[in-house]
């Protein structure tokens, strides 16, 4: 079970063990981590599960699909390390991954 660290915009950290096969979004929603809204429920259709992935983890993640690139247009203050966390499915190799949450979603 990979451990994910979510860092809220105010600096508060949440360390959560998330089952393989779940997304970083699901890990947050199911464990009550605030700051990820996931309005559409993981359909890559709303851009309200936006996270900033700690740089060193970026190349371990699956590449952005077209729909994620399109939806990121709608996210609040995107940066180079912006991803939609519903598209980030966890595996063992992601153990220790760190994501920062934006000031707000949408």
């Amino acid at each position, binding site marked *: 079970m990979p451990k994910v660290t979510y860092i809220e915009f105010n600096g508060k950290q949440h360390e959560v063990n998330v089952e393989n096969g779940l997304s970083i979004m699901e890990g947050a929603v199911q464990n009550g981590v605030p700051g990820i809204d996931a*309005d*559409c*429920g993981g*359909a890559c*259709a*709303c*851009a*309200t599960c936006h996270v900033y992935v700690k740089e060193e983890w970026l190349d371990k993640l699956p590449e952005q699909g*077209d729909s994620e*690139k*399109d939806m990121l*247009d*709608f996210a*609040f*203050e*995107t940066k180079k390390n912006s991803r939609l966390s519903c598209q980030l499915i966890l595996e063992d190799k992601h153990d220790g991954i760190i994501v920062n949450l934006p000031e707000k979603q*949408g």
Partner: protein
Amino acid sequence: MKKTDAVIIGAGPVGLFAVFELGIMGLNAHVIDNLDKVGGQCIELYPDKPIYDIPALPECTGESLTKNLLKQIKPFNTEFHLNQRVESLEKKDHNWIVTTSDQEKFETPNVIIAAGVGSFEPRKPPIKNIEKFEKTNLYYAVKDKNKFKDQIVCIFGGGDSALDWTVELSKIAKKVILIHRRDDFRAAQHTVGLARDLEKEGKVEILTCYQPLDFKGDESIKTVEVKHDDGQQKNIEVDSVLAFFGLKMELGPIANWGLDLEAKSLKVNTENFETNEKGIFAIGDICTYPGKLKLILSGFHEGALCAQECFKRAKPDEKYVFRFTTSSSDIQKRLGVK
């Protein structure tokens, strides 16, 4: 003022099926939605994505589900009030007065909130005090294109709205400047091609990999400050700004109606899905109770149960007798079965 047995807020699948459940009991309903079309999230967010968990429909799409629900409620000739949001609910004796953003008013004993995650609102760029410009020269939609005649128009976005209006307004504006955060546009490639041609002719300027930093001006926007990915900043003088950053969902005025909330959901009982206010119900994704699942099928069930209570409130002197659609001649008459 329109009098009706029920007002349904939200024209998504759950709101539509509530029309059916009310309809077979002989109750009429008006449906209000902030979008310009029926279907809610199913149509706005994922019309083509397959749905596999609607009972007896092994696979359908948001679009086909909506179409079929509209077919199912066709016998009831329901009135839809689109492009408007419910702004207020006021108590009047046994009834509620519902007022929309277009000042339409309804009097009804039953308000069914089937609003999903809330209403779809334009997403605004992250700029301080942006609201003051909304009164003057900042727009999230085009209502009258002639307003932009002979103007320098700055358009933000990379989708169909942004590209369509870039092409369209270039015919009457002095100049159109299109600004997008990346090099790719998700709009129809044909329209992107047209915009690129207009760029070569000098009618349109396209700036990519730029994001808005600030809008400057006293009452109206005079200058738009943008920043390139490489850090370089640019000031652009404009007459008006169109921002097409898509839609987002907001609970909106629902939060101000004195209803019990838990996170962004409305608390209901599971007997009739009434909120803490008599005659105000919540069904579908917007309601919460122990064990709640945000599934379309749960919303259908919630609508059926809430309709029973709506009947009691709409027709307090009549006794309701539960009937099946297979055998009730009353129901079949209402459905137009011959």
